[in-house]
């Protein structure tokens, strides 16, 4: 059976459950507008590490951008 392997990955993206069809962090990022920064499971992921970062089921991914603050 040469059926194509379809990846289905459920993670927490900015606090909401999200199903992905790629485990590559880089595949997820184009939907976000620069500037942004990334944390995976509460740890900072530097931009240079995006291409090497794989996501796993249940991961908590936070993508943040500038807002007003005091």
């Amino acid at each position, binding site marked *: 059976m040469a059926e194509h392997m379809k990846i289905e990955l459920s993670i927490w993206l*900015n*606090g909401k459950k999200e199903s992905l069809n790629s485990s590559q962090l880089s595949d997820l990022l184009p*939907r*976000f*507008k620069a*500037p*942004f*920064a*990334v*944390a995976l499971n*509460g*740890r*900072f992921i*530097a*931009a240079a590490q995006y291409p090497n970062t794989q996501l796993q089921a249940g991961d908590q991914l*936070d*993508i*943040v*951008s*500038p*807002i*007003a*603050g*005091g």
Partner: protein
Amino acid sequence: MQTEFNIYGEPLNSRLILGSALYPNPAMMQQALQQSGCEAVTLSLRRQAPEQQGGEQFWQLIRDLKLRLLPNTAGCHSVQQAVTLAQMSREIFQTNWIKLELIGDDYNLQPDPILLLQAAEQLLADGFEVLPYCTDDLVLCKRLYELGCKVLMPWAAPIGSGLGVLNPYALRTLRERLPDATLIVDAGLGLPSHACQVMEMGFDGVLLNSAVALAKDPVMMAQAFSQAVSAGRCAFLAGAMSKQDFASPSTPVLGMPFWLQETP
């Protein structure tokens, strides 16, 4: 005129630092920041919601002002949260400055002194220039300073309260005991007179947000705070007279008319 002010070696012409939150609208924020003459502004990071457009407009406005950026870790309750948010801030804002906020109580937003020390130590080791938002506790401030925090930002009162200086003794003590630290009063000021009061004590600067942003006219209030900070600094440098518990006439007594040396 008022001697140099710097934050981790970065000279600033204004001793007033303003926040960027709570203004009635972005244009008002921009005007208030400009009219205050401040050269540094606080801001933060939150989860990006692609459907919301406001974030981009805010970032564009802030960039146009060309101010020094002081990102905060507002809302963090753990060392790991604060460290991660600081690292994300450094990447986005391209600055080593971090206003370290670690909340220990949700009711009065009082900083957690124990976690603050732990987070400051980690961030300093990671190359950050840490500006901890702290209480006015002398021992905590001494520990933070000894760790390497060259700038300390004790509160005057809880964030957003506008109560002014609740414990002038504690603030005066900090100034006296940490003469070489850069001390910026952060949080709790409501009126320009509050800012003037702490500047008269010898504090190096003032950081505030709500008092300007929530004024009926934020732009005018920003100007008022700017003047108050300058006035307080001048007064500190000028040196106040000593207080006394009795009257002392300022007009010379000698030569007073209607007075006779002898009873007629």
